[in-house]
Structures are given as structure tokens and as C-alpha cells.
């Protein structure tokens, strides 16, 4: 039987809803289900109303649905905001100490979480584990899977904590068994014995960077990108990674420049405001041809905007950031699995072309969870790009960092690597790296740098289609909006509509050559993105002279889903251009 369920836990910051969500997500994954999950939270540490939404299904899922099978309400706002989302057969479980609801059906039940936690032999802070236990029982999950998830989650805190959390979960389950008489539309049916990893986009980026041999990361904390470096840093010793929290983002990118110049794969991670401060350093990377990877986690702007929410508003900014002209690449993964591989590809591109490479995500992708089968690490290829041959380093000729070559890429050497001096400047320079103002040399150096654009375009990641070829309507999207579009296509196909989608996993160089034939037989191109000005649409016009028919846009800081796209498409979309 096909399983496809949505579950939401709502509560205030500080109530520990992440623990409930994580435990259930882990247990669901261990049941062999595929997950999509995201978190919605305020820029505050206590209070407010946050929630954790999990969708679990027997086939891969990429976005949330609007109808809930279970709502767990830890605060009253969960009722005001999400009660109406509960679908037919859905269950509402609420913390009776904090929430008041008229329980008008056996599917609506309150329980005193703190009391059960204490009675179960634990402490009242284990209230959230009680909730997890109750939910897990109601959905019919196998109790050892939850117990195992608890064991692994709390392992670092010691056996006692594990045991009392397991007891709390058991207390929740017991309560449900005794008291719950409803019938929940969510019924977990274990799928296969091997389970899947549950990873956020940020974790996937972190693992990708470590796999790629990134050994230097400097960053200044900024939501939603901090998770990447915090995750990497937790593994720093084991991976010989140097991490430094810079005094500001200017310092972060310049530290990375220094490390990269000396031969270490280096990256930074930031969000809009922090990236704004890196723009001058980006231009230095462009001029000195220093490889650097920028993990750019978008959030709604302008300015501080909405710090913990999601948006895709910085595409054209990243594309044009930096004074002067130099090539770059922009990768725009749509899913944590893509994010892992994108990160590895980013380091290879940076090293092959000696350019800055962006990996753009957004809060949805950064903090959102997905299930994936473990990446095949044997498939990871490392390409450090052209390096000065060892014999040349022993020769008498001086090393020329900016030697003219056919494709504009000059083999690298590193200071201290040999007796050869490595010379570089952010002034316009000659082949040796010393500054020049000669007009002819200037022209050639500009051309050298820009010459990389061609091979870079030749190997751009191809657009990824879904939902068949030659559809009358094509949804064109990038980054995390992949998920909503993919779900929308499935929904539209159920409704027999002739719609397919194309996702761009790399937006720059713009994959015009590969895209044009895909759009040739389409009468209606609809761009889908999380911003207000239709940035992908603008770029499409610029790069292909194709006028998109309409745009589906959302810019309230909350993620799209498939149903939203379907509805907007039915309404005809917008024209922001």
C-alpha cells in the first residue's frame, strides 16, 4: 500500500520540538520511508511559534503537503494556526497543560506530557520524548525503531539519559495504548530492512566539502549558513580541517584567499548580508584567479529581512557581484543529495578554472531534511586542476603564475612548494604576476580571464527534466524550488495536465545550449522561484531571448509546495517583468 503522510509538531522556541521531530524522522527513516522535512522558526531563542513539518512516504517526496495526518500541539498557536490543516482521519495530540481545545472527536486528544514524563521515571524536560512515544504508537510504528533512534540520539549524553528517554517514550506509548481510541490516517508500514540517511542540506554541504578535501573554512556566523561550518567544525580534528570564526565576513573571505593561494582547498559560508561584505574579496579572487568556494545560504532580504526564513532573492546579485569582469560558476542544487555532489563539483571547478564558485541554497534546503542512500564515496573524483609540473619547478625559468594559455587557465604553483617564487597581485598584471598598466597586456589579461567562460560553459551541469518531454507547459526552476515543482508535476499529471518541469542545477554559465532544445516544442514556459522580481525569468530573457509566459513567485518567507504551484498555475501566474 502506498504510504504518504504529513505530520507537524508546533510549539514555542525552547519547548524542544526539534527533538520530537528528529526522533520521529529518524524512526520513520528506519522504517524504510522516504522523508521530506522542514523547520519554520522565528529569529528568537525562546517563545514565538515554531513548527517542524515531516512528510514521510513509501516513494521519494520533495515537498510538504498541506493536509496533516498528525498535528502535535505544544502551544496554543499551533491550534490557531494549524488546526485547519488537519485532514480527514487526521489526529490532533496536544499538551493539555499548555493548550486548550474542545476534544470533539476521538482523534483529538490531550495529554499531560510533563506529568507523564515524570511518572515515566524521567524529568519533565523529557516531555517531548513522551510526545514522540505517543505519536509513534498512534501511527503504529515499531517501538524498537523509536527506542533505537533515542539510543543513538542521546548516546553522547550517557546511558542513563538514554534509558530515561526510552522510558519516557514508553510512557507516551502506554498512554496512547490506554487512552487513544481514535483512528489515525497515518499508519506506518515498515518498508524494507535497510534504512536511509536523514540529512539536512547544510549537513550534505558539509560532508561534500569534507569529501572534496576542503581543509580550510573561515566564516562569520549567519543564518542559515552557520550550520554548514558548525557541522564541518565538529569533524575538524578527524578530517584535518582548519576552521576559524573570522571577526567579520570580509576577513572570512580574505582568510580563505590566503589559504587557497597557498594551495589549500578553501571555502566560506554565509548569507546575503555577509556575502555583501565579501564582494570586494570576490573581485580579488576574480583578478588573482584564486579558487574559492562560497556556500551561499539565502534568506529573505533586503537587509536583515527575515533572518530565519527562506527566499531565493540573490541569484542576480551573486551573478553580478564584484567590480570588474571575471568568470564564475553558480551551482544551484535542488535537494540535499544534489547539494553533496554540488559541493564536490564546486571544488573541482574552482581548481580547474581558478575562479570563485558559488553553491547557492536557501533556508528551506539548508535546514530541511531529506532521506538519501549513502553517497558512493568511490564515485567522488578530485581534480585539483592544472598544476605546474614538478620538473618545471626545478628548472631555471621563473615561474609565471599568469602564463598565457589557450583556455586561459595557468598552471598553479604554491609559495614554499619549491624554490620558485609565486607572485600575484590584485592590480592588473603581467604573466609573472607583477603589476602593469600596459594597454595591450591589459587587454590580453582580460581576455585570458574571460577565455575560461567558454570551457566552463561547455561543461555546465545540464538542465534536469522531469515529467516527460514536449509538454505544453514547462515549469522552469532552480535551487530548492525543485521540490515544489516536482510535486506539482505529479499532481498535475494525476489531473491529466500536460505539464513537465526543468530544473537548473547550475544557473551560471547559463545552460542555454542544452536548454533551448528542451524548450523548443513548448508553448508555455513558466518560471517558478521564491522571489518577487522573477530573476530566473530575467536571466532567461537575457541569455535566450525567450520571454517566459508567466512566473510563479512566492516571497513571504515560507516555502512553496506542490499544491501552491498547481494553484498558481491555474490562476495563470504573474508577470513581474
Amino acid at each position, binding site marked *: 500500500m502506498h504510504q504518504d503522510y504529513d505530520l507537524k509538531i508546533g510549539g514555542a522556541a525552547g519547548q524542544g520540538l526539534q527533538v520530537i521531530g528528529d526522533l520521529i524522522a529518524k524512526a520513520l527513516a528506519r522504517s524504510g520511508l522516504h522523508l521530506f522535512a522542514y523547520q519554520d522558526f522565528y529569529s528568537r531563542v525562546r517563545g514565538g511559534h515554531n513548527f517542524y513539518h515531516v512528510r514521510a512516504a513509501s516513494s521519494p517526496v520533495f515537498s510538504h503537503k498541506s493536509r496533516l495526518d498528525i498535528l502535535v500541539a505544544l502551544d496554543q498557536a499551533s491550534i490557531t494556526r494549524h488546526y485547519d490543516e488537519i485532514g480527514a482521519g487526521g489526529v490532533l495530540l496536544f499538551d493539555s497543560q499548555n493548550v486548550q481545545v474542545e476534544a470533539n472527536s476521538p482523534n483529538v486528544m490531550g495529554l499531560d506530557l510533563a506529568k507523564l514524563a515524570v511518572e515515566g521515571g524521567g524529568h519533565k524536560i523529557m516531555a517531548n520524548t513522551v510526545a514522540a512515544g505517543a505519536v509513534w504508537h498512534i501511527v503504529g510504528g515499531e517501538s524498537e525503531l523509536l527506542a533505537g533512534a533515542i539510543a543513538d540520539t542521546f548516546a553522547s549524553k550517557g546511558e542513563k539519559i538514554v534509558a530515561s528517554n526510552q522510558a519516557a517514550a514508553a510512557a507516551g506509548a502506554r498512554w496512547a495504548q490506554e487512552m487513544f481510541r481514535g483512528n489515525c490516517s497515518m499508519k506506518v508500514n515498515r518498508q524494507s530492512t535497510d534504512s536511509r540517511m536523514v*540529512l539536512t542540506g547544510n549537513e550534505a554541504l558539509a560532508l561534500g566539502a569534507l569529501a572534496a578535501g576542503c581543509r580550510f573554512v573561515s566564516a562569520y556566523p549567519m543564518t542559515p549558513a552557520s550550520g554548514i561550518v558548525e557541522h564541518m567544525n565538529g569533524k575538524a580534528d578527524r578530517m584535518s580541517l582548519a576552521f576559524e570564526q573570522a571577526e567579520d565576513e570580509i*576577513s572570512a573571505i580574505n582568510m580563505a584567499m590566503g589559504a587557497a593561494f597557498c594551495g589549500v582547498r578553501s571555502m566560506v559560508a554565509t548569507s546575503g548580508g555577509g556575502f555583501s561584505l565579501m564582494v570586494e574579496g570576490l573581485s580579488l579572487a576574480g583578478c588573482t584567479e584564486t579558487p574559492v568556494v562560497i556556500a551561499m545560504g539565502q534568506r529573505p532580504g533586503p537587509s536583515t529581512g527575515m533572518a530565519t526564513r527562506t527566499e531565493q532573492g540573490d541569484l542576480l546579485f551573486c551573478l553580478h557581484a564584484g567590480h570588474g569582469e571575471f568568470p564564475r560558476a553558480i551551482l544551484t542544487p535542488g535537494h540535499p543529495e544534489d547539494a553533496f555532489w554540488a559541493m564536490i563539483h564546486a571544488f573541482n571547478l574552482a581548481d580547474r578554472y581558478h575562479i570563485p564558485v558559488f553553491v547557492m541554497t536557501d533556508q528551506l534546503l539548508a535546514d530541511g531534511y531529506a532521506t538519501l542512500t549513502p553517497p558512493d564515496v568511490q564515485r567522488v573524483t578530485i581534480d585539483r586542476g592544472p598544476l605546474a609540473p614538478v620538473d618545471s619547478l626545478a628548472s631555471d625559468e621563473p615561474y609565471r603564475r599568469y602564463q598565457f594559455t589557450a583556455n586561459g587557465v595557468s598552471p598553479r604553483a604554491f609559495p614554499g612548494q619549491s624554490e620558485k617564487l609565486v607572485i600575484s597581485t590584485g592590480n592588473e598584471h603581467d604573466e609573472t604576476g607583477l603589476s602593469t598598466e600596459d594597454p595591450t597586456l591589459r587587454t590580453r589579461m582580460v581576455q585570458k580571464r574571460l577565455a575560461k567562460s567558454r570551457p566552463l560553459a561547455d561543461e555546465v551541469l545540464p538542465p534536469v527534466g522531469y515529467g516527460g518531454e514536449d509538454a505544453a507547459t514547462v515549469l522552469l526552476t532552480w535551487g530548492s524550488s525543485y521540490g515544489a515543482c516536482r510535486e506539482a508535476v505529479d499532481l498535475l499529471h494525476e489531473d491529466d495536465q500536460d505539464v513537465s518541469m526543468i530544473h537548473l542545477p547550475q544557473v551560471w554559465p547559463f545552460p542555454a545550449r542544452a536548454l533551448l532544445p528542451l524548450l523548443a516544442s513548448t508553448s508555455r514556459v513558466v518560471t517558478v522561484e521564491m522571489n518577487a522580481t522573477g530573476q530566473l525569468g530575467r536571466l532567461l530573457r537575457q541569455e535566450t531571448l525567450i520571454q517566459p509566459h508567466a512566473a510563479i513567485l512566492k516571497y513571504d518567507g515560507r516555502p512553496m509546495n506542490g499544491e501552491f504551484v498547481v494553484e498558481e498555475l491555474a490562476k495563470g501566474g504573474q508577470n513581474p517583468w
Partner: protein
Amino acid sequence: MVTTNDYDSDRENSWCPGCGNFPILEVLKESLAERGIWPHEALIVSGIGQAGKLPQYMRVNMFNVLHGRTLPVATGAKLANHRLVVLAVGGDGDGYAEGGNHLIHAARRNVDLTYLVHNNQIYGLTKGQASPTTDAGSVTTTTPRGNPTPGLNPIALVLSLQPNFVARGYAGNKEQLAQLIQTGLEHPGFSFIDILQPCVTFNKVNTYSWYSERVYDINQAGHDPEDLSGAFSLAQEWGKRIPTGIFYKGDRPVFHESILGKDARPLWELEPEPARISAFFPEYF
């Protein structure tokens, strides 16, 4: 054996004749040679300004970066290859205006490098604007009615962060300068040397003779470089007498050892090891 000649470059020098940068260049080349450091073993990260041009006039590894950003770049370079002798060089505008935040934090981290600030109390390359160290009242292109703000005190500022070495030299006293630079190169940790550098073109106040009349050597005068409070008091002097020499010497742990551990292999030598990440997979199940 390394000699100064190993550092010589035949590149045309574009500084003004008589500029205080010339003796600094000379002393730096000598000092590196004197310490037995080969050009390929050193990396000079320099900023933008007349001072920032310095490594262009030597044979040495050079990364000439943005205005004000020498220290972060140098920090990254040191972490990547801590076997390199790393120096940072820039002007007073570069280091005390645009780069002020990095100065604070590099000093606090005690990054193992030597930082030379050519302090001519003016913006040379951009033709004579006030710098953070321009004396109050000085007329410059941006202070036509006299500088309304007093000059910043770089020695006091850096002392407040307690890096391992804080000194002031003077381009007009090459012997002392050589000794300061060499001590800075030898001494582990962040070695900060503010160098009084006459700009013969744009600074008509703080000239060779102006400085020469005022400078004195605090160490000869008995200052003990381990006395931080004494150093701070001395640093307040600026006017009739200008203190030079070693203000402070400390022995806090150096940054790259705190981060990488002692005896670590330089990061740049390590090969990528993608397969090792598999060890982390179980935590995501």
C-alpha cells in the same frame, strides 16, 4: 648562505626620490637575509598604497591584495602553510583605517607573522588625504581647514590586544629598524612594528628632520619590554619626544599551533581523502 642580493629585483621603483620607503625596503631585505631566510621561504602579503608596493621591488613570494586586507590573507596563508615565514606590509591608511578591525583581531589571535606598517601619517598613493595617524590640525587634501580629529595611537591600540611583540621603528634609523625587524621575525607570534616613514611629497609636517629631532630609544632609556603598563604609559608620548624601540614582548601561544596543534603537517601538503567521510555516515541513520 642567503645574502641581500638574493632579494634584489631589477624592477623599476616608482616611489618618489627620497621617500622613507627606500630605507625600509633596504633594511627588510637585509634582515631577511641576516636571519637566513631564503626568498622562497618567505611570503609577503601586502596591501594597496605606496607601502603596499614594497614586495614588488624585491624577489620574494608576494601576494599583493586589497587595501586593508593584508592580515586576514596572511592569517589564512599561515594556517595553510605554517612553514612559511609570513610578513604583512601596508600603510597607515591600509592598516589603521580600512584594516583596523583585522589588526585588532590578528593581534588578539597572536598570528605568527611580522606586520610592518609604513606610517607616513598620510595617504601617499592617493595623493595626500588625511590618515588615521595624521596629527590634529594638519592640512591635507581632505582636511583643508586642518584635521579636526587627533591621530590614532597605534602602539597603545595594539598593546591593548597583547600580541607577542609590539615595537616602533623609524625609517631614519636603519640600525634600530634592522634590529626590530629581526627580533620580530624571530619572536613567535604576532610581531607588530609601526615604522615612522617620512613622505617627502605629501607630508610637509612630519618630515625626516621633524622625526629625527624627536625620536629616542625607549630600551636604551631603560624600558623593560615585559612591562605592559609601562609600555602603555610610554606609548602616550607623542610631541616633543617620540618613543621608539620595543614596547612589549610576550609569550602567548601562537595561533596556528592553537588551531592545528603542535607539529602538525602543513595543511597544503595533505591529499583529499573522500572515502574517510564514510566513517561519519552512521550518525545520520
